[in-house]
């Protein structure tokens, strides 16, 4: 009980010092806010009309083919109605010309439906969509591949339905074996409006799925978590400077000769660092949700748990750092250096998933990478709680290692 009371008192004292220091408040609270606001503003331009992604579609089928209806359903009719970041889909009427334009780098790429597309779909045998692209634009290529997968998946479902209907009719002897091909032709005619009736509206329905990176992403979804990780870690690193200062001016020793035990001092230092982190987290997420309209995905609890684990890890790092340094200046320098090296390496400045594989592998040595990967999974890719358990465990492991070193090496000036 006395230990807890002392930890509470020490934490309160540290927070009082923190709030009395205007520079510390500015760099821990206001500066990150300005930083995030600025970068969010800058990143908001990405995906706007000036740089709208254009996805091209073409078909080699005759005009009666299903692909015509698919393209007509997907084609952007009114560009002004598009949301920020939403791609413009263009129907390229001339396949050969489109292919030449890609070769000449006038087009980034396009998806083409093959000549036998409708027949293959209705008869149940496989066919392939062509994705023709220029490798100089990986973003457009990824989007085209994503879109092709989406079309293939949607049409594949339709194909299964058709085959099942034919199978059932044959099984019930409503049609004799061998006439299934006629039936298929009938269905095809019906679907394409060739059964004698004028086509009403399309009988094939298409749904637009969220595929790959083509969905408009709120930049706050990666700007805010990235800078949150960076600034919480940086503030915790600065705590090392404060602890070192206390060791050098002998207040830690004075606490020991009072009634504070070594573990209470360590607990108080850790708790105050952690509380500063919590304040930052609350401000970052508060601003993110209220000002930048962030969506915390389908597992907001996981977002908060990762935030808290990251804060615990960063606090442990701050205390650990203080045990390695001898002067305030070295605490400050190493803290800033560690923060500035680990932040970009760990994906605080740009999403890790856009970096090369080797860089993603190296990044895993930083706790930042685990925290950012967890946030990206939840906020950008819509992952659920279970998907980020590895990231949570990694952050716990980092916190335990840093904390153990801090406990073993923590010292006052008297030691």
């Amino acid at each position, binding site marked *: 009980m006395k230990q807890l009371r002392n930890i509470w*008192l020490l934490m309160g004292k540290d927070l009082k010092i923190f709030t009395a220091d205007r520079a510390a408040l500015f760099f821990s609270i206001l500066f990150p806010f300005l930083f995030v606001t600025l970068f969010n503003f800058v990143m908001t331009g990405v995906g706007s009309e000036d740089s709208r992604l254009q996805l091209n579609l073409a078909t080699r089928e005759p005009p009666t083919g299903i692909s015509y209806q698919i393209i007509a359903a997907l084609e952007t009719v009114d560009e002004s109605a598009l949301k920020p970041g939403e791609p413009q889909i263009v129907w390229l009427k001339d396949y050969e010309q489109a292919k030449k334009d890609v070769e000449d780098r006038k087009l980034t790429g396009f998806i083409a439906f093959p000549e036998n597309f409708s027949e293959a779909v209705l008869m149940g045998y496989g066919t392939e969509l062509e994705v023709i692209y220029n490798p100089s634009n990986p973003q457009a290529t990824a989007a085209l591949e994503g879109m092709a997968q989406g079309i293939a998946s949607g049409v594949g479902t339709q194909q299964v339905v058709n085959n099942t209907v034919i199978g059932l009719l044959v099984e019930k002897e409503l049609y004799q074996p061998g006439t299934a091909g006629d039936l298929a032709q009938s269905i095809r005619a019906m679907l394409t409006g060739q059964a004698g009736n004028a086509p009403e509206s399309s009988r094939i329905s298409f749904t637009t799925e969220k595929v790959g990176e083509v969905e408009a992403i709120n930049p706050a979804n990666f700007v805010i978590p990235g800078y949150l990780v960076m600034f919480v870690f940086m503030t915790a690193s600065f705590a090392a400077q404060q602890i070192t200062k206390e060791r050098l001016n002998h207040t830690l020793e004075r606490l020991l000769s009072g009634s504070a035990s070594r573990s209470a001092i360590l607990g108080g230092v850790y708790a105050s660092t952690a509380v500063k982190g919590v304040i930052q987290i609350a401000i970052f997420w508060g601003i993110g949700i209220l000002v930048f309209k962030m969506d915390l995905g389908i597992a907001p609890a996981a977002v908060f748990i990762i935030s808290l684990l990251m804060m615990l890890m960063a606090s442990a790092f701050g205390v650990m750092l203080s045990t390695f340094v001898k002067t305030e200046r070295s605490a400050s320098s190493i803290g800033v250096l560690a923060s500035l090296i680990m932040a970009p390496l760990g994906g605080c400045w740009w999403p890790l998933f856009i970096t090369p594989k080797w860089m993603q592998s190296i990044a895993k040595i930083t706790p930042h990478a685990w925290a950012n990967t967890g946030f990206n999974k939840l906020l950008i890719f819509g992952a659920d709680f279970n998907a980020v358990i590895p990231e949570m465990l990694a952050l716990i492991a980092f916190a335990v290692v840093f904390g153990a070193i801090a406990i073993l090496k923590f010292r006052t000036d*008297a030691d």
Partner: protein
Amino acid sequence: MAEAFLVAKDLHKSFNDHKAVNGVSFTIGKNEIFGLLGPNGAGKTTTIRMLSTVLEPDVGEVTISGFSTRQQPDKVRSIIGVCPQELALYEELTALDNLTFFGRLVGLNSRETRAQSMANLALMELEQRAKGKVSKFSGGMKRRVNLAIALMGHPKLLFLDEPTVGIDPQSRNKIFETIQGLRTNGMTVLYTTHYMEEADRLCDRVAIMDGGKIVAIDTPRALKAKLGDPDKTTLEDVFLKLTGRSLRD
């Protein structure tokens, strides 16, 4: 000497290969002002750290009011106050905040803390600056705050480690007056300094340390008498005679 309040027996402490304290033994009587004298590096501060439970001796035993610093450090801490040589203060906070924090830490409740904080600041003639940031204080004022903190919780034994280093005569006199007043109120004081005239003026007995050992222990007058006329001899003369070097080496 009155009944022994502090007993230190054969204390040893080394840091790596350096022997900082080498077989120090002494007792301090209740209500006594005991001086621990010696040049920088003599082992005074290390001795105080061991007596005040901050450091554990490699060898030796310390009891304060019957409590062992090894076995009952919490009991010892509840009856001692330490004014370290350094200004162990939170300069970002006010004088009152500093006293309040350390008062709560020694177990006082809010009301007691407030009352004692204001009383101690008044004792140090700092009540007008109670809400001033310590960083804005002069060196002498900081020294007085340093001492005021050590008095929180009304300790029975006060360790004063060079409390007058680098301060103006006015603050030094104030500290002397305070120490004498504390003794009148029944407090026991261990006072380290390398200013001989301070020890001569304040202390009932002094121990002279050099190279981690006590080379002499007695009343200032008795020590001076060993060299000649105690009215004409100084403690500095005594130290020179005993160690062969100046106190300010």
